């Protein structure tokens, strides 16, 4: 019954799926972005245990759901573009390992910090949450900046592995070159990658501080979060502007690449979109900074969300023709992998499209409901003295 034979235009579903993956990434960056920001700030903005607990509890009910956006983006990439998933995950081996470590130590920290009353225990987990929440956006920022520059790949060759059975890898699997590709992530493009990492961390600090002002009741913690947001906001505006202008000038969409990958020269349109999104991001960041200073936290939060979204859009538009990869020589005008040769079969794409069309709206609906359930602002007066003795 599920063996559908649908003659859809080949590139149509691939484009749909890359858009869906981008949407999942945007959901992840916008939602988990603020909980990274809040967690990074726990040791700095919380002056006593109750304040720290307020901070943890503003994200407590939602952080795990936010992280699923990342898992779903990973799963969707695997299902829709197996060759992209295979090359990307194995190529970015050490960076992804660092991300996993960050996700592990922050994830347990939220659950475990309050399970024991000792100050040392709690401080340890607060720092683990902060460090984990710092590592993840830092590495993702570096990675995305490198996708924009293009990671060089070549076909796996026989001598990379002992010659073994049934090895179609040599004909089909692309690997980053030269391997291990690690230091290059930091130094290529005169440190554009490192700037990307710093900008993402700063953006999440800004986003998280604004979220704190939105979710805390008037009081010292609230004021501190607002003050911090006003300061880090300026850094985000300047850093973001430098990063985006650098990107637009130095790493624009390439005509030859879009033509080869998509059949049309979309480069002028993509470049224009890049500048438009840059302006949108800049306006949104400035608006967020102004609104949070004037006590309009809701609009400020929407503004940082729009800024994150627009940067994600530019990033995906730039990397989509070659999926973030370029040829082995690092020539940005040619890319061996593209939407078509990296994608799953039509059968799988059709099935996954049906699943996504049905379930994405359902997920959005109950996620929104859960945010509504926990809409109340929290303050130190809301923290019970007894800590987490009941589940």
């Amino acid at each position, binding site marked *: 019954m599920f063996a559908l034979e649908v003659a859809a235009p080949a590139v149509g579903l691939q484009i749909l799926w890359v858009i869906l993956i981008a949407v999942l990434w945007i959901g992840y960056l916008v939602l988990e972005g603020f909980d990274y920001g809040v967690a990074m700030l726990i040791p700095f903005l919380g002056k006593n245990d109750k304040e720290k607990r307020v901070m943890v509890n503003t994200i407590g009910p939602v952080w795990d759901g936010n992280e699923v956006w990342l898992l*779903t983006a990973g*799963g969707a990439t695997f299902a829709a573009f197996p060759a992209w998933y295979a090359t990307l995950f194995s190529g970015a081996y050490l960076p992804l390992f660092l991300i996993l470590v960050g996700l592990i130590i922050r994830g347990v920290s939220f659950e475990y910090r309050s399970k024991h009353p000792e100050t040392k225990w709690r401080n340890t987990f607060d720092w683990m949450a902060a460090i984990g929440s710092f590592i993840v956006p830092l590495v993702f920022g570096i990675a995305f900046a490198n996708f924009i520059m293009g990671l060089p790949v070549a076909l796996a060759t026989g001598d990379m592995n002992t010659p073994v*059975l049934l090895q179609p*890898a040599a004909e*089909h699997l692309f690997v980053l070159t030269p391997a291990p590709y690690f230091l290059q992530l930091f130094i290529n493009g005169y440190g554009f990658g490192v700037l990307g990492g710093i900008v993402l961390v700063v953006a999440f600090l800004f986003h998280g501080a604004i979220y704190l002002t939105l979710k805390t009741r008037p009081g010292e913690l609230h004021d501190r979060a607002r003050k911090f947001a006003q300061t880090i906001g300026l850094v985000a505006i300047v850093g973001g502007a430098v990063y985006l202008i650098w990107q637009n000038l130095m790493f624009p969409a390439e005509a030859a690449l879009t033509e080869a990958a998509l059949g049309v020269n979309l480069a002028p349109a993509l470049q224009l979109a890049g500048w438009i999104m840059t302006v949108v991001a800049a306006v949104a960041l400035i608006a967020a900074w102004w609104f949070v200073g004037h006590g309009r936290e809701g609009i400020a939060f929407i503004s940082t969300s729009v800024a994150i979204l627009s940067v994600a859009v530019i990033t995906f538009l730039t990397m989509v023709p070659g999926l973030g990869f370029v040829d082995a020589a690092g020539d940005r005008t040619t890319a061996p992998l593209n939407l078509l040769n990296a994608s*799953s079969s039509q059968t799988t794409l059709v099935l996954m499209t049906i699943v996504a069309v049905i379930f994405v709206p359902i997920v959005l609906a109950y996620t929104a409901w859960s945010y509504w359930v926990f809409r109340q602002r929290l303050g130190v007066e809301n923290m019970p003295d007894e800590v987490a003795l009941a589940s």
Partner: protein
Amino acid sequence: MSAETLARWQFGITTVYHFLFVPITIALSMLVAVLQTLWYRSGEEKFLRLTKFFGKVFLINFAMGVVTGIVQEFQFGLNWSEYSRFVGDIFGAPLAMEALLAFFLESVFLGVWVFGWDRLPKKLHLMSIWLGSIGTLLSAIFILAANSFMQNPAGSFYNEATGRAEMTDLLQVLVNPVNLVTFPHVIAGAYVTAGGIIVGISGWWLAKLAKAGDADAETKSAWHWSTRFGAWVLIIAGAAVIITGDLQGKVVTAEQPIKMAAAEGLCNTESAAGFSLILVGSSCEGVAEGQSITALTIPGLFSILGSENYDVNAVMYGINNLNEQYTKEGFSNVQLQKDTAGSLVKDVASYNAANADAPFDFAPSIPVSFWTFRTMIALGGLAIIVGIWVLIATNKGKDPKGGSLWTAAMIATPLMALFANSFGWIFAEMGRQPFVVYGVLPTMSANSPGVSAIEVGLTMVLFTVIYGALAVVEVGLQLHFIKQGLPEVTEPVVLTDDDAPVSFAY
């Protein structure tokens, strides 16, 4: 060691570790939902106290299951990129569906449940634990479908043009005959584990309070109730494990005969093949017909268990015969195996030409298969026996007499149940070797060609160190809360006053 060997170790370590938390999460979430439902229906305080207590045991494990689960989804691409590319068209779909249908459900609703005691009306709050728990069950369906594909790659074919396996039918992937028996077996095993945990903690507390004599009667009665509840769960789930295990044995014998032959140490094809208690050799090489590498054999039992109609004279294939057959013909159970049989045979021939002294062995490690299979059965069986003992000892409101054997049994039961799961999986996955996709893609061809042994080894060591440290923390916390015992509770009410402290916060 080669990158491939290290990658296998890394997968083994991280997966066995992850699966310590999975069965607890799956079954305990549902049992906590049952406890909360009993409280919702009856209003009896003891059910609320038990809900909160076992809810916490569940959450401590859930946190670990979540963070170690992320590694699982990523490491296919990290360490097994050729595998990911080769089967992503089929294997990626259940993984994506697991995230979209299951992970969101469990994460969002468990978040709502944990923090929602005084935010939601009782009924909606109860619904949230049920939905979260259903999420864990859905997750099992999809990931076991993915695993079953590796054991028996149904619903797919080989596409010459793309050089990879592609999906023909999602339904066949989901209702793979292997999945149809694996799913109930794994779920039943999860309930044996959760039942064992409830029995262990409750039985330990019950004996302790009974001995103290002056214990608060309500607390003691709550532990008495949960001791029997856990024992019933353990026994019923244990019966389900045995029935589904028997069915699974038959399916595996049909789909992967050489795996069962290794588990029974059967070198040469026999009718009325026996089930042995002891393995005396480690390889079938040079073991001629009439010879055996096992001892203490119950005649005919393997044939009875392995055949569909419990036929004592059924023919069971031996490792040597199967090796010969696969070397000549390859595999032919499902389309994908048929499509790749020709090139497998050709590759094996050239491999054997190059490695004349150690030809390609289609059998998994015999000692590993033999002993993990028996350890699983023994541990699970012992746990079930403890369950029966507990039921008898607590019958008609009796308190158990306690003593060191009782204490040892209460500590051992959850662990035996848990490790029975681990050994079952080690058997299932090691028994699939030397293939990652059974009969199609050898494991040695599937790892990431661009990733060096140094990288795999380094991350393996670091994962192990981090996981080890987390284990210390999680066991410590677990013991801390077990020693605290049942919490005092107050009836949760929905907060209307924004200034009031919430009843639960981290």
